[in-house]
């Protein structure tokens, strides 16, 4: 061989490794591109949702007559007919559900005669029925007064209308949730007591209970009346909007949420509107089968569940790992345990969901209910709840923590342990005072990984407590403040619910992207904070080196 005799051969055999360098580099590149593409898509699509589009009026030819359609462009596409003809189409959101029966509409570009952007087009958000698009006509107050759009006071009056109705809605919510809720709870308790006394289980005076019940009923009647009044007032005033095709649509004052003029707004006004929409997305409760409003309960549920999960999984995993690594006699049994733990990480997550349902909810929950709530009419702990969901996820992620902790313990230099023992420390003292602090950063890495996995998990949660809509948060102002038995909402499940279970998939699409972006954001934030804590610890416990 000619080149084997040449020590500095630059071609041939000595270069045969290079294609593999390229191959590995290409593999990495593809991976990076895919990840960035995925993140980019989610970020762009997710942020796009909040940017207010300009509203347009399309003059469309419809069987000879011209029809005006107001709305914003959703997508541009080419449709192919069965006979092979192609049509350039646009999809327009035009809202006004009551008038048209559907919020979205496809327009053939060939039929569009004219497009314009009138300044006075309004985009109106309301409680139910989706957005309304049109021009302001007038406000009809309950007392018969009317203010037309041409009135110079019109803008102020509209704003005042929105504000005072917001107050009323708050008042109504207070009455319904707090006062009537408390009343109903007391009635329920008293009725149960009465039944127990009747059955001779408890002693007491039925008359006294009846008197109390009557009082409560009177209170309820009063509250109910108050509620009726507020509802009436919410219905009393109407804001009338003229649609592009000249019809009028009335929105009750109580339904009115927000009015915006996208065509008149400059860049900063649109930016402000974007921020307002983001804030309402983050802080509001969902409306309209989750397709409108915000995701606040889902954010809350996700964060609380992940934190509770970490609180359970960390001590459990760390203690197990300490025993496995430090105390257990290394042999076939320990090896088998270790392999099982590692394999546990590979079990499909839905299996954990089924286990959680059978063990935590049916068995543990049943026992808890039997002990503490023997007379409850509905199961308290024997149904899905945030506690059981957190425990199920803790089980799911415990292998991650065990493996990471074991590795961290193994990485603590032998000399440090020996030094501790040579100072007269017992084995536990050495572990507790020297080995554990030194392995804390590694343990935290495990917890970070566990949190990342737990926060994104959906399948098992569906069996153990996640629901489509849970207006009551697991932590709130009602005694006893923490309600571990409550069902909760979760961002991951929310995405699934929006994407696949929503009655109006077109309307839900933007929410899917926005929620996905938010889920990624929350996971990143939780991880980042854990990483920052870890780096602080790492600095504190940096091991010495030569």
């Amino acid at each position: 061989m000619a080149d084997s005799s040449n020590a500095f051969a630059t071609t041939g055999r000595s270069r045969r490794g290079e294609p593999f360098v390229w191959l590995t580099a290409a593999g990495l590149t593809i991976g990076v591109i895919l990840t960035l593409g995925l993140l980019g898509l989610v970020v762009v699509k997710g942020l796009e949702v909040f940017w207010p589009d300009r509203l347009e009026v399309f003059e469309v030819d419809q069987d000879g007559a011209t029809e005006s359609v107001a709305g914003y462009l959703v997508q541009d596409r080419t449709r192919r007919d069965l006979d092979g003809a192609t049509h350039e189409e646009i999809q327009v959101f035009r809202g006004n559900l009551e008038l048209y029966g559907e919020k979205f509409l496809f327009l053939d570009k060939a039929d569009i005669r004219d497009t314009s952007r009138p300044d006075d087009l309004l985009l109106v958000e309301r409680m139910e029925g989706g957005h309304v698009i049109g021009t302001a006509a007038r406000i009809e107050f309950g007392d018969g007064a009317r203010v037309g759009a041409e009135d110079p006071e019109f803008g102020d009056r509209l704003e005042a209308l929105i504000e005072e109705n917001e107050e009323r809605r708050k008042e109504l919510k207070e009455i319904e949730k707090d006062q009537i809720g408390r009343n109903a709870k007391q009635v329920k308790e008293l009725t149960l007591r009465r039944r127990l006394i009747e059955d001779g289980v408890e002693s007491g005076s039925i008359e006294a209970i009846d008197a109390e019940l009557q009082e409560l009923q009177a209170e309820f009647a009063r509250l109910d009346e108050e509620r009726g009044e507020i509802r009436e007032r919410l219905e009393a005033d109407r804001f009338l909007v003229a649609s592009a095709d000249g019809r009028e649509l009335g929105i009750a004052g109580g339904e009115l949420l927000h009015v915006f003029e996208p065509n008149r707004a400059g860049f900063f006004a649109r930016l402000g509107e974007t921020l307002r929409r983001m804030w309402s997305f983050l802080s509001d409760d969902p409306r309209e089968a989750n397709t409108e409003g915000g995701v606040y309960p889902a954010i809350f549920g996700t964060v609380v569940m992940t934190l509770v999960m970490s609180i359970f999984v960390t001590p459990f995993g760390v203690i197990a790992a300490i025993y496995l690594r430090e105390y257990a006699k290394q042999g076939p049994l320990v090896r088998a345990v270790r392999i099982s733990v590692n394999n546990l990480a590979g079990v499909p997550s839905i299996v954990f969901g089924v286990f959680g349902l059978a063990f935590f909810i049916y068995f543990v929950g049943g026992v808890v209910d039997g002990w503490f709530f023997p007379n409850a009419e509905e199961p308290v702990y024997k149904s899905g709840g945030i506690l059981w969901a957190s425990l199920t996820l803790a089980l799911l992620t415990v292998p991650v923590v065990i493996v990471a902790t074991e590795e961290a313990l193994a990485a603590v230099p032998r000399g440090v342990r020996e030094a501790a023992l040579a100072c007269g420390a017992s084995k536990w003292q050495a572990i507790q005072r020297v080995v554990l602090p030194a392995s804390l950063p590694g343990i935290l890495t495990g917890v970070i990984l566990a949190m990342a996995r737990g926060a994104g998990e959906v399948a098992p949660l569906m069996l153990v407590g996640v629901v489509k809509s849970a207006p009551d948060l697991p932590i709130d102002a009602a005694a006893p403040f923490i309600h571990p038995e409550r069902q909760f909402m979760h961002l991951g499940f929310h995405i699934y619910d929006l994407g696949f279970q929503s009655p109006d998939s077109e309307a839900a699409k933007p929410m899917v992207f926005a929620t996905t972006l938010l889920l990624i954001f929350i996971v990143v934030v939780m991880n980042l904070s854990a990483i920052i804590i870890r780096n602080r610890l790492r600095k504190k416990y940096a091991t010495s080196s030569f």
Partner: protein
Amino acid sequence: MTRDDFIAVENFSFFYGEKQALHDIDMAIPERRVTALIGPSGCGKSTLLRNMNRMNDLIEGVRHRGDIRLNGHSLYDPKVEVISLRKRVGMVFQKYNPFAKTVYENVVFSLRVAGRNRKRELDEVVERSLRSAALWDEVKDRLHDSAFGLSGGQQQRLCIARAIANQPEILLMDEPCAALDPTATLKIESLIRELKEQFTIVIVTHNMEQATRCSDRTAFLYMGRLIEYGDTKQVFENPREEETEAYISGRFS
């Protein structure tokens, strides 16, 4: 009066599994003297040293024959508690290994694990130990900084301070200067000469000059056997055994 057989190694053999590391060692280590263990790598000198505070118990599958007595009491008496034994025998390792704690907490570690937490006592111990380890002047203003901020030689002296904090009777040193530069080495050596006023010191070293500079007695081990044991001057200037001469004159290592 000092005792000549303060540490008495009696017919001591030691096994790692099937492998015998020490063969019937017999030697008496005098009180408040420095005794050096020398010999080529793998000769068993570290094994012998680590048996004097039963550090080898940590390894699985080891066993021994014979006995080691501290001031007349057997280390291997079933009634002996290893923890209380290690309180009487301090140890300094080849690689300095301070804990990821402050200088102060490093020094008082042995007191804390013994449940002694009174601040005044700890403060006294810190000053006394650091002065004994010739480190006080250098670190007295950074007692509450991380120990890792010190230089290598300072860290090793900190480890010595930590080992003597609880006032042991014996100080075992396993190649204490192996990881240090010559200046730091000289400091540690002069420290060793001072410390022998208070402690019985056994030091393992690869460095012949070090053994001559700071030890009173020298034991030469080879292949797990004690070849020669005597006054340092005699062992180095006038060795009785051929292997000893070969080793100290550098014909093998």
